[in-house]
């Protein structure tokens, strides 16, 4: 498998005032292979979201190098929007759906803005909606949909540009267990089709769907575990054990 994300010596410092700095990340080294499902866990303020933002070009590291799909960020800096469009799909904790647009427009937004309306995009949006069980909502507005439906709309929007990497920051929020399971099954099926998934979560159950779990504490990777030949239950127990060790 080829390496799709490679981060070496990544550090991130936030400036509070002239003399005070907060070290959000310190000397992070990660290599993520294409088609892998990686989960990042850690307590609040451990640097999970910062790490995800840096790995996906949303934020810049203070130190270190980043390579995505074999290209360094320096090489991409003039066409980052193209790079994001071709490679990345994001699902946010806050979903960020736009209330003034229909579900169809929300899902197709990046494509509509870049290339305008076309039949293949139209068909693909319908296909995605069918896959995620939201085909009946396409011409409704997000405010008319339930929390679980909105979550699926956000996932569909992240997938509309056929991304190689799907990034999800706390993708299941406060959803009920049945919806959570349905969404995680969607993630698993996408992963089986070859999409690399990078997910941030606090939940050990969600993490048990991944191939590999990284545990972050005070901006450093303090533990790492791969699923290997474990069953999901064994993997879940192992993750819970690690989290307990780090008081999560």
């Amino acid at each position, binding site marked *: 498998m080829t390496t799709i994300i490679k981060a070496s010596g990544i550090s991130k410092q936030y400036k509070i005032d002239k003399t005070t700095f907060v070290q959000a990340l310190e000397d992070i080294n990660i290599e993520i292979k294409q088609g892998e499902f990686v989960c990042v866990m850690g307590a609040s303020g451990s640097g999970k979201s910062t790490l995800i*933002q840096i790995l996906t070009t*949303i*934020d*810049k590291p203070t130190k270190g190098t980043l390579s995505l799909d074999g290209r360094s960020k320096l090489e991409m800096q003039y066409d980052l*929007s*193209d*790079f*994001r*469009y*071709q490679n*990345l799909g*994001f699902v*946010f904790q*806050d979903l*960020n759906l*736009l*209330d*003034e*647009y229909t579900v169809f*427009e929300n899902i197709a*937004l*990046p494509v*509509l*803005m*870049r290339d*305008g*309306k076309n039949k293949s995009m139209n068909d693909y949006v319908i296909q995605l909606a069918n896959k995620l069980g939201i085909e009946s909502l396409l011409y409704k507005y997000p405010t008319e949909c339930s929390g679980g439906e909105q979550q699926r709309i956000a996932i569909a*929007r992240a997938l509309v*540009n056929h991304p190689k990497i799907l990034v999800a920051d706390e993708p299941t929020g406060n959803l009920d267990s049945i919806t959570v399971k349905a969404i995680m099954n969607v993630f698993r099926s996408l992963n089986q089709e070859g999409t690399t998934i990078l997910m941030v979560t606090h939940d050990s159950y969600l993490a048990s769907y991944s191939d590999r779990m990284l545990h972050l504490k005070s901006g450093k990777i303090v533990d790492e575990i791969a699923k290997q030949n474990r069953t999901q239950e064994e993997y879940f127990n192992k993750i819970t054990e690690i989290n307990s060790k780090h008081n999560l």
Partner: protein
Amino acid sequence: METVRLALKSLKYDTKKTKSYFLFQIFLSIAICLCCHFCADFGTYIQNIPGYEYSVFIINHVYFISQTFPPTTMFSIFLLFALVMLGFYAFQFIYQEQSKKIAVFRIGGVNTRKIVLFLFMYLLPITLTAMIVGTLLGFIFVQLLNYLIFSFSEAIYPGIQFSTDGIAITIMILFIQMIYYIILTYGFVYRNEIKDVLNYNNNGNSLSNVRILQENKPFRIIFTLIGLTFIMYLLIKAGNILSANIILGCTAIGIIMKTLIKDIIIPIITKIKRTKYYQKTNGYFGYSFTISNLVRSYGLIFVLSILYQFGVCLIVFFKDDAVDLSISVVLFLIATLAVVISIGFQLLTAAKRKKKEYFELFRIGKTNRDIKSIIKYDLSLFLIIVFLVSNIFPLITFGRSLFDGTITLGLMMVIIGIYSIELLVLYFIVKKNYYRIVKIDN
């Protein structure tokens, strides 16, 4: 085409949110129209006033302006420049409303050009409609003003007049304003990191790079120096030493005031933190509102103090001349209103950033009544400082004029009264809206 359609759909949805921007844009267009009239059209009707001291110079008004450059024309040019720059604050207000959309577009891989097109198409219908309505209203005001001025000077009113130069300059200035907005849009989108836009949207954090002019100190200094040098050159060339002195005096005092706010007043208010009221509100008095807003607004207060001082100087200087006094009063009103409205926009933009801090106040048990009280006291303190700072130089002028007997106490009270009413209206509008913004999400 899809970008345009999406922008228009978004605008239709946000009609209420853009109301204040629309009204401000109408005001700006009326103001621009009046200023252009004073710049270009001044000579057209002044020729018809018998015995007017400049009339001997008038062959055509362009010659008139280049030869004499009266203080009112010079102030109009200065004001025009300030008006276009002040559009920035209304624009910033609108931009921040769009931050969520911009973040979603950028993360989805939409390029800067398309986002700029989206924002521009979003703003174009409101801006253009407001400009057309404002310009038409402006022309009506100009005719009305002509009529009033002729009535004051007891000259024969020549009827409705259209100056082609005035119209041309107005259109040109509005065009420049549109270009300025395109540059601003591009600057906003290009300079802000996605992370900042996202954090602003989710947590109410500051858009650190939004304040292009405020943060770019060398650019600002160079910009001000070039502007001042240009005005001084024109004034001295035109032989108008009085205007040159006024602008130099106002600028010097404005710079001293800026230092006063930044280095003396703000540190003093910081110490208020230790007072009983500060403790009662868990540190939000004199910190969350007053200091941060003084820091954010001192550039605007600086502009306000210069325009206010200049307006006062003109009124005092021309108090015995009906024509120039009328023009001075109109320019004084335009100048102070424009900056007062801009300060209002800036305060309301700050309210959006402060949501999170006010939320903390709710969490520690403060009631809606407490929040209202905090906003009321902080806003009063802020506006009293604005009032005092901008009145320092006019008070010196008033004092000297009262001593010389060139101004009456009544006129002085009227000028300060008008300014106080403007600030009072701003107080009530901002207080109500600030509370609404802070309260909504909590």
